[in-house]
């Protein structure tokens, strides 16, 4: 009998302990309405070297009915000597817990790029609640202006910047998507350079344009790609399979919409003097626009013309990369990884890259003229 009571007592004790745990509001248990979600983080450079970082947080303020009133945004800004002190100060500006779980876009102001990228990025890598699948971009004229832009097409509850990058919303060959984990890899590793989309906004802050990209090389030198170069980069890096080519023939001008493509490259270093970077492009598409009548019997000719144009486009961009000394496609990485390590492959490549020649093989196939004849 006593034993029974003892056992029962033990269970009761255990249960009451567990029950007590429920009333303890630990740091882990914070209800969703006691948190405020940071949607995007901007880092700008101030001219003051004492407090060089200007951190902007875009916060979503949920309202009772998302459908009717939509989500409102609010912004917190702080200048500080480091990102973490800035965040710490920003925390005191709101009554709720800042939750970085949904901070999926990180925008760096153009000015900050003169600083060591590793240093700026470190904070985002270390913080466990910022996801490594966040998107990284460059804000023009400043990160703050980009974050504060509220495009008119932005709907309630969905953040426009997310839609640009996550391929659920808009898909475009002009948008380079750079994830934080990939960005980190490119910054720390040598042989491949970080590339980021450029987000630019106009004065009225009613629009965000993303159609350019920016490459930062190891010496912190930045190279901005124009729209065409961005599209070519997306094609070459297999980021985006679609590509529009304007083919200018002697007799006929037409535009080919490539919808499937695959790009491979090899590096051949037979003689140390002349390394060859061979690039094979397979592309399949249809004619989208033409100034003359098209003839389906001449598809073969059209394909050849398109191949030629694509080859020209690609070679131009590759030569530009080489001239500027940037390597966003990772030729150096490929060189290192396909040769036995001797601890100086990187230096070797630095010497070889400027001397390399490009051999681009394009096999474009136009499946149809795009009209029913």
């Amino acid at each position, binding site marked *: 009998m006593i034993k029974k009571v003892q056992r029962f007592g033990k269970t009761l004790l255990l249960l009451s302990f*567990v029950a007590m745990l429920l009333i303890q509001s630990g740091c882990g*248990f914070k209800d969703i309405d006691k948190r405020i979600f940071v949607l995007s983080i901007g880092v700008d450079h101030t001219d003051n070297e004492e407090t060089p970082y200007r951190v902007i947080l875009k916060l979503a303020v*949920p309202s009772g*009915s998302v459908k009717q009133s939509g989500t409102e945004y609010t912004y917190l800004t702080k200048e500080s000597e480091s990102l973490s002190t800035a965040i710490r100060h920003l925390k005191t500006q709101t009554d709720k817990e800042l*939750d970085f*779980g949904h901070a999926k876009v990180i925008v760096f102001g153009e000015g900050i790029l003169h600083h060591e990228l590793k240093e700026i990025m470190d904070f985002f890598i270390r913080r466990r609640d910022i996801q490594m699948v966040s998107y990284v971009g460059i804000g023009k004229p400043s990160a703050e202006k980009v974050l504060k832009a509220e495009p008119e097409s932005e709907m309630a*509850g969905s953040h426009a910047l997310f839609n640009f990058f996550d391929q659920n919303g808009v898909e475009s060959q002009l948008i380079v998507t750079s994830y934080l984990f990939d960005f980190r890899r490119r910054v720390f590793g040598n042989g491949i350079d970080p590339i980021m989309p450029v987000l630019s906004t106009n004065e009225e802050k009613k629009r965000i344009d993303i159609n350019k990209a920016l490459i930062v090389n190891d010496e912190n030198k930045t190279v901005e790609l124009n729209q065409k170069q961005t599209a070519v980069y997306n094609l070459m890096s297999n980021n985006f399979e679609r590509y529009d080519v304007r083919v200018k023939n002697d007799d006929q001008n037409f535009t080919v919409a490539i919808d499937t493509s695959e790009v491979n490259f090899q590096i051949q270093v037979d003689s140390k003097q002349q390394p060859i970077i061979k690039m094979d492009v397979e592309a399949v598409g249809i004619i989208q626009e033409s100034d003359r009548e098209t003839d389906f019997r001449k598809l073969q000719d059209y394909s050849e013309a398109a191949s030629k144009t694509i080859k020209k486009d690609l070679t131009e961009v590759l030569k530009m990369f080489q001239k500027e000394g940037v390597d966003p496609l990772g030729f150096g990485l490929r060189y290192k990884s396909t040769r036995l390590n001797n601890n100086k492959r990187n230096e070797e490549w630095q010497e070889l890259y400027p001397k390399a020649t490009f051999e681009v093989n394009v096999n474009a196939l136009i499946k149809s003229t795009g009209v029913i004849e």
Partner: protein
Amino acid sequence: MPFKNRKSDVEVELEWLINELKPSSDILHKPLRLDDKQAELVYIKSVVDGAQLQQIVIKPFFELASEQHVEAYLKSLPNQQEFTSKEQVLLELTKGSVVVKLKDELLLFEIKKVNTDTVRETNIEPTIMGPQYALSEDLATNLNLIRQRYHKPSLTVETMEIGKKSNQSLAIIYDEEYVLDGVLEQIKSQLESLDEPVVQTSTQIQRFINNQKRSLIPIMMMTERTDRVVYNLAGGKVVLLLDGSPTTIIAPAIFWDFMTSMEDNYGMYWVTKFSKFLRYLGLFVSLILPGLYVAATSFNPEVFRVELALSIAGSRIGVPYPSFIEVLFMLIFMELLTEASIRLPKAVTGTATTVGGLILGTAATEAALASNIIIIIVGAVAISTFVIPINEMSFAIRFMRYLLLLAATLAGLAGLTLGLIGLLMYVANRDSFGEPYFKIFFKKKQAETRVKPS
């Protein structure tokens, strides 16, 4: 026959029987006499069918010419019972037998009056296809129902009495050819060692003989469907049928049995696969949804889409209590509603569910006691609980989700995952009469229910 040819003994026996039953007012001791024919009847009026007694015993007694004729007639009656001991006779009298003293002999006849032999429509496990009638509350009728659906000489029915005081008859039904001997023996020995004064329903047996003092998941399956009984008999299972109970229990039963509806055998292949998928989906929804809500709102809002996080945050504006109290509050109300609609008379149930479900739900969100989303979740949980075809399992699942809710409240998604693993381990650890409870049957049915090697 120990009482034969010992005149004084027979007298004494009869005397003893009457004395044992005496204080009851419905005991009848009736001597019959005509010319040189004599007999005595002893029976309990309230359990014996009077008209039948009149028809098959009393009337022939007066019509037949001599005592020899009467004796020959009575001894040829099909409802004559064996006489083993006076205690047995006493017991049989309470069940509706009649003792006839003829010459120097006591004869026992079963002339029961049964008012519970109406076969009811299925109401615990209704289906669209398949038999629409379930069982009755009378053992003989039920045995008839089962035998009429399973015509096989190897079908064996053994009867025994359980309940130290109530002495209910219990039938153990199995197919001699397919039954697993180990299971049968284990069930029999456990039933024999059962020490309970009163056993009322077959489900009670399952609670008494599952080897655990406190059990959560059923290891025997309760069913009222004769097609399920037959299906399981053919699969080599043992069916227990208690007199006075409209449900049978089937052993051994493993987890997947509880997720099967009889309609799975009747419908089209893809249709039944789809409904099976729905059922398992319902199982998971009703298990984890409340916990998932707490985990997602209070620990890991980053796991789901930002739109969802904002919409939950928006709908929680003004809700005074933390998410787990909110969930618990609504779940408990839902459970109360379920309980109430089981207990209430059928006519009132509709009103109760409408008032409870609709008005309470809307009012709770209006009053900002609960968020809109929790109403959806509780609704989804309530519906999906009922998708599980066997009631006992759905009640067990109903309980389990509070454990998962607790785990999620303590440690978020990690806790929920751990809790699920824990439940999985608990279930996998159990067995039903030697059959692993979570065994996955990947062989064909024929291979799994093989014929016993003889």
